[in-house]
């Protein structure tokens, strides 16, 4: 890393720098790249302003609009945020170990003949539309997994997560989390795989030469090198899990904004995105500003989650440096 930047700055005497034509090309490219970056910022700011303006009335709407589960915006949005976070956390708990495992097997364990098709199939998963995941999850997975959920409830019912009356259709927040996990698997796997493959060969060989087993080599050479990339991959997955709308709406038997730790019952907390999707074209259009205001809450929440993740990565990088 350091050596490359030094050679780059040392190249002041490079034959390319003096030519005016190339200077022109640099300026064009600089402008293009900068404007691309600025456009993204403007787009984000525009979304923020849109949500703020359109959702403004939603912060202090009539009491009835927040009924039946809340009486004001704060509790309404907080309950929805709980559901959003719960579904995303379940998805992350399932997907992250899988994604890292699959990525490692592709980059370090599996023979090439197997690794290439696995990578291909995982990437293919990203091309499945979310409505298909929703249909599959709601109609098939929920139905098939219902006995499993009954088993969990019967044997592990002493855990608060698995207690309560099991849903007879299986369309619970647990299954919504499983479907979300499958949906975020490809993106997290792809990024982890890429960064694992970027580990310098010399580091790996040095670790092996020092007598490390393959797992130890991965722990001491691959993971530290890939840390920030892994976090980035997980964050992208989390972003998708937080914002996923269609699949959750179709899979989840959502009772609206509510707080419950029971993962297997019929009364499940709605997520912000699924709540917007199902309530937006209603009889009372006053609810629309409330829904847009919850969209703003999700926007800010996602922003802070990403911000926090960056901060964690930066801190650990500094510790390693």
């Amino acid at each position, binding site marked *: 890393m350091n050596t490359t930047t030094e050679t780059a700055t040392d190249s002041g005497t490079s034959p390319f720098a003096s030519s005016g034509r190339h200077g022109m090309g640099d300026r064009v490219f600089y402008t293009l790249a900068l404007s691309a970056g600025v456009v993204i910022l403007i787009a984000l700011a525009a979304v923020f302003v849109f949500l703020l303006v359109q959702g403004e009335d939603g912060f202090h709407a009539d009491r009835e609009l927040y*009924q*039946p*589960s809340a009486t004001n915006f704060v509790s309404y949005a907080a309950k929805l945020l709980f559901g959003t976070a719960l579904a995303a956390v379940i998805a992350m708990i399932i997907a992250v170990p899988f994604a890292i495992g699959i990525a490692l097997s592709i980059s370090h364990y599996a023979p090439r003949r197997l690794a290439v098709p696995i990578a291909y199939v995982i990437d293919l998963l990203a091309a499945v539309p979310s409505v298909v995941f929703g249909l599959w999850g*709601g*109609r098939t997975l*929920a*139905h098939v997994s*219902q006995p499993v959920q009954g088993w969990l409830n019967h044997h592990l019912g002493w855990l608060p997560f698995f207690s309560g*009356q099991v*849903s*007879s*259709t*299986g*369309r619970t927040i647990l299954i919504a989390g499983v479907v979300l996990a499958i949906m975020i698997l490809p993106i997290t796997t792809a990024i982890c795989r890429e960064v694992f493959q970027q580990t310098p060969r010399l580091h790996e060989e040095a670790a092996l030469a020092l007598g490390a087993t393959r797992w130890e080599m991965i722990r001491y050479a691959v993971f530290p090198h890939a840390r920030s990339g892994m976090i980035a991959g997980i964050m992208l997955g989390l972003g998708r899990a937080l914002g996923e709308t269609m699949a959750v*709406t*179709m899979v989840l*038997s*959502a*009772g*609206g*904004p*509510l707080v419950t730790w029971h993962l297997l019952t*019929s*009364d499940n907390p*709605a997520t912000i995105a699924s709540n917007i*999707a*199902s*309530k*937006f*074209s*209603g*009889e*009372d*259009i006053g*609810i629309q500003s409330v829904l847009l205001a919850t969209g703003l809450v999700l926007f800010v929440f996602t922003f802070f989650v990403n911000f926090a993740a960056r901060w964690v990565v930066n801190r650990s990088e500094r510790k390693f440096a």
Partner: protein
Amino acid sequence: MNTTSLRRAIVPGVAAIALAASLAACGSSDDDSTASGGSSSASSGGAASGLSGKVAAGGSSAQEKAQESWRAGFGQANPDVTISYDPVGSGDGRANFISGAYAFAGTDSALDDDELKQAKSKCGGDPIEVPAFISPIDVIFNLKGVDTLNLDAKTIANIFNGTITKWNDQAIKSQNPDADLPATAISPVHRSDSSGTTDNFTDYLYQASGGAWKTEHSSDWPTTKGETGEGTSGVIGAVQGGDGTIGYADDSAVQGTKLGVVHVKVGSDYVEPSADGAAAGLAASKTATGTPASVMAYEINRTTTDPSTYPVFLTSYLVACPTYSDKTTADIVKGFLTYAVSDEGQKAAAANAFSAPLPSDISAKATDIISKIS
């Protein structure tokens, strides 16, 4: 050798035919669009078919299929007229009608006083509101070994509010002495989205359950308890997906499923959902008082004791202005609405959307109101 030469001969031939066909298709569609463009710009030129032009409408998604059949039927007589119907939901439909974006709208609930005032100032006169679509709502269930059930409104309300939790509850048993009812837990399924079906179903529970259902009608389900499904298909999927489930859905969507349908108690009989029963139910209801003469909003009577009526049904309305600044628009809206409430239009909708044709006196009254559009 033989096959290759054959292929060589065939492939270009097929390609040429395909190309010719696609070119022809392009050409003809181009012709169509220019033709319709030309006539619509000519607007009230008085073509052979009478009307030409474009009208935008939208609203209730329950009416979507009926609107399709009305457009098809109206389009046959008026090939130069384009009517678009955007199923954005009743609330947005009314709002877009009041803002002027839609020439007319479909809505599952009648305009309220505020909206009537706003519509009046937009239209320059009291708006026109007529019932156009009646659809029975079925109470459906999925229970192993049971195909049909008799339930009264109070029992249905107690099932949906969670008071009755087992299928072999005494209240259900006493009404179905012949059924072999298991001790399975009941999972009531309701809509997670806001809908006219929920509005009418909760209205039925409130009116007919004798106090067992506490909240007035609302298009959003009044509690957070219970299984939910997104849209009609979501509810049907959920009811099919579990054992011991019960839900409610438009009759048209229940046709073709193998779900059990509840016979609802009316008077002393148990009545199966039917288009005729729903139409008779509307005929037995009164129009709301205190509204302008052009507004035919019904206060539906869900507590009839006449066994020829089926009280759980949805009535959806068409809303339009009495006058339009543009004569073409006025003629198209008038023609289309007249067709929609006519015997022919109602039959077309009944065939396509399994709705109940309007009773003839209601249809005649609606036609009379629509005829004043100018």
